[in-house]
């Protein structure tokens, strides 16, 4: 894997997502999904919420068919994950994130396509 892409940081300035609720918040940027198919972003990560030791992603399916998530990668390491809700629209990753650091997340689908998400500045503020 190459190092982080500088353009992601620029993109982060354009799309800041603030989260509230039962989780601590962070700022995140959804970015392009890789695809082994036609390049259409069929699965995207809409937002992320941080709680101590955990990252919860909210997902959106833009396709007509169900899309399983087969593997999750955080900062170039495969990680465990589980569904938060019965519908599988939220996915939780147990991860010892550190405030102020950045995280690249990739969710791989069975076809090898990915839904990618950048946490620019992990934040404990609400």
């Amino acid at each position, binding site marked *: *894997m*190459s190092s982080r892409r500088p353009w992601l940081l620029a993109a982060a300035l354009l799309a800041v997502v603030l989260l509230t609720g039962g989780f601590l918040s962070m700022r995140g940027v959804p970015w392009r*999904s*890789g*695809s*082994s198919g036609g390049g259409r972003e069929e*699965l995207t990560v809409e937002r992320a919420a941080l709680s101590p030791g955990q990252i919860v992603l909210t*997902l*959106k*399916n*833009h*396709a*007509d*068919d*169900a*899309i*399983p*998530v*087969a*593997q*999750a*990668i955080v900062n*170039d*390491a*495969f*990680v*465990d*994950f*589980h*569904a938060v*809700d*019965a*519908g*599988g*629209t*939220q*996915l939780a990753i147990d991860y010892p994130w550190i405030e102020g650091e950045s995280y690249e997340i*990739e969710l*791989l*689908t*069975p*076809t*090898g*396509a*990915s839904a990618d998400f950048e946490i620019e500045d992990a934040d404990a503020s609400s």
Partner: protein
Amino acid sequence: MLAGAASIVGSGVAAKLAAASSRNTVHDSVMAGSMHTGFAEGRTTVDPKVNGFDPSKIVRDFDWGTTQRLAGGRVLRQWELVAYDREIEIVPGVKFHAWTYNGRVPGPTMRCREGDVLRIHFVNAGSHPHTIHFHGIHRDIVDGVPGIGGGVIDVGGEFTYSFVAEPFGLHLYHCHASPLVEHISKGLYGAFIVDPKQGRPPADELLMMQNAFDPNFNDDNEVYAVNTVAFHYLYKPIEVQRDRLVRIYLLNIVELDPINSFHIHGNFFHRFPTGTSLQPTEYTDTVVQGQGQRDVLELRFPYTGKYMFHAHKTEFASLGWMGMFEVVE
């Protein structure tokens, strides 16, 4: 539902999103093969039946071809390699549309002795033009590059590469059609071992092809391995005997990343670069390889137990290039 996803055992649960009629609502959830680099019980690897090849067998699978004695005493050694497309599973739940030699990645480990006459009949049953380029010393007409000799072999075409095996050592073969990165990274490569005439000391011999995959085609590998399947040898350790000589044929065919490395825990090894000398140049526990580089490594395990090996380019380790030796009496 895609095959494989539901059958994979792991602690992760896939988020399975809904169809258009009820987007982002529940259909169901399935168990998925979420991997990490820990040692939790119950984790698994790809079922070899899915791929049609088993990394636990590839590691000791050396193909000596079919032989006949030529007038003058030389050995003629022959193989047939067929290129064809095949979907393989590179980490539980994630498929990759590979281009293969004989349906496996890496291709057959071709083994011969210095001075043998080699004849490799190549059939291109794939979806794109391909070649076989062998490392070694030979004439240009059998070099497997575009525009010379057989050149690029079109879909449906055939060609026979014939040359004498030299020098002894650990070599590669791979497709040399353009674009080269694509043809190699999709799986068209294998090891080509030329034994010295006098042979090497008896040993438990292992083939380790360091490779990687970019399943979302973003010019950035997501999955790393030895012999294709991420973490395979972590969950199915390579069993070796205490005090027995182990010889590792280590190659790096990873594209997109300039270097790779091999590190072993609890031990040191003798390093024979490219295997072209019988004298080691180094006694170490870590070796760095560039793209296409090879080394023969020799070691003995003095203690029983489990000993990890992995890339010391540690992000590769966390993305699948990690395994285990299990040393037994």
